[in-house]
């Protein structure tokens, strides 16, 4: 059996090269996705990654991208398919029997967009993913990134249609008013709250103490999987990372923003 381990981290434009390399080694990461890469040097990070573990490649995007990609296999196995200012679609042709469509995204922040506009945006993105899947001809797709939304804001059939229940997702699609809408499974639902699934209740912490609604913990960084990938998904591998093995990214019960204001997430697909 072969495996593919994915790690996503919004690094808040900080230079966290050493931490990233340590995490890649610790978790044996094959596919590394970084949002808010800022002015960091991608080839510099590639060198550091190679010094820790062989074979990492930086996949230089054809156009602007929100999510930088590094892989631990030949670059020729990554096919760039689509980019827009929110997301990047790449085909991973690593497993001969199962091509994977990987969508890395970083949706606009709640700081710069109203809830209404976020709804518009989310629906656009979900529609585009659906369109590209139709062109590609299969739905072996996963979406990973900083959605800047909570799992409970991504349930609508018109948007990501991201259910919390694998068995519901395995129905593949649902018809609403004569239209077909495909499901995603969103395993991040399992991390809401403090019931031991993770050491923290989210991937981003913001105390809005002056507001009536204050989530404190936000589950903005997520992975969604189409039902066609669920048999490959190792659900126990999904983790909100709170340490690189020696340094904790949590301080006084909050995210230590000396590193990033977001925590990384990682998971594995088995084939």
């Amino acid at each position, binding site marked *: 059996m072969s495996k593919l381990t994915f790690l996503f981290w919004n690094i808040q434009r900080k230079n966290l090269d050493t931490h990233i390399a340590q995490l890649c080694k610790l978790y044996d990461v094959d596919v590394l996705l970084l949002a808010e890469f800022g002015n960091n040097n991608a080839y510099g990070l590639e060198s550091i990654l190679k010094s820790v573990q062989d074979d990492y490649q930086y996949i230089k995007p*054809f*156009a602007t991208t929100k999510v930088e990609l590094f892989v631990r296999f030949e670059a020729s196995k990554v096919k760039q*398919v689509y980019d*827009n200012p929110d997301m990047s679609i790449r085909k991973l042709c690593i497993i001969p029997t199962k091509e994977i469509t990987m969508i890395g995204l970083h949706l606009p922040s709640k700081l710069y967009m109203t809830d209404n*506009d976020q709804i*518009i945006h989310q629906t656009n993105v979900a*529609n585009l993913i659906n369109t590209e899947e139709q062109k590609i001809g299969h739905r072996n797709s996963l979406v990973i990134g900083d959605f800047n939304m909570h799992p409970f804001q991504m349930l609508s059939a*018109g948007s990501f249609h991201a259910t919390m229940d694998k068995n519901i997702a395995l129905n593949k699609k649902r018809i609403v008013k004569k239209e077909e809408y495909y499901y995603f499974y969103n395993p991040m639902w399992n991390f809401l709250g403090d019931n031991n699934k993770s050491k923290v209740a989210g991937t981003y912490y913001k105390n809005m103490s002056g507001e009536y609604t204050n989530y404190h913990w936000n589950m903005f960084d997520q992975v969604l999987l189409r039902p066609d990938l669920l048999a490959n998904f190792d659900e126990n591998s999904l983790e909100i990372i709170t340490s690189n093995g020696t340094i904790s990214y949590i301080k006084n019960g909050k995210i230590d923003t000396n590193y990033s204001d977001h925590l990384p997430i990682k998971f594995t697909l088995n084939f």
Partner: protein
Amino acid sequence: METSKNYWDFVDEIIVTPVTILKEQADFLTKTTKGILVGEIVFEKKIIEEGYPKLYTNKFQPNVVFNISSPILGYTYQLMSVLYDVKENYPIQINFDNGIYEAKDEESFKKFIQECIQSDTTKKIIQNLYSQSKVFENNNQPKD
């Protein structure tokens, strides 16, 4: 035998719509780059969620996407998308470079499109895609 009169008071006249303007610019891109890059206009159905701004009243609105494609690379970049009401054409809502903008009429829409196309962001993307496509064209490499 006709059982009733034709009630369609229709004049065969083409008017300029937001889609006309986008399609013209898409075709200009294809022509300017001699087909190395292709401007594409794609129609999608957009679902208007509850809580959507009052600009639109129908649940389903046409969303028009302006793509730049490189057939040689097998790659597509979405430059912008436009949401409009088929009954009125304007105002329209434009998604470009992570911002949402509104154009009230044809004149302001044309001005906005010109600014988008001539922006540094767009120029950089076009130049990059064109250059990389030419490399693969000269190397005669297959798409996949």
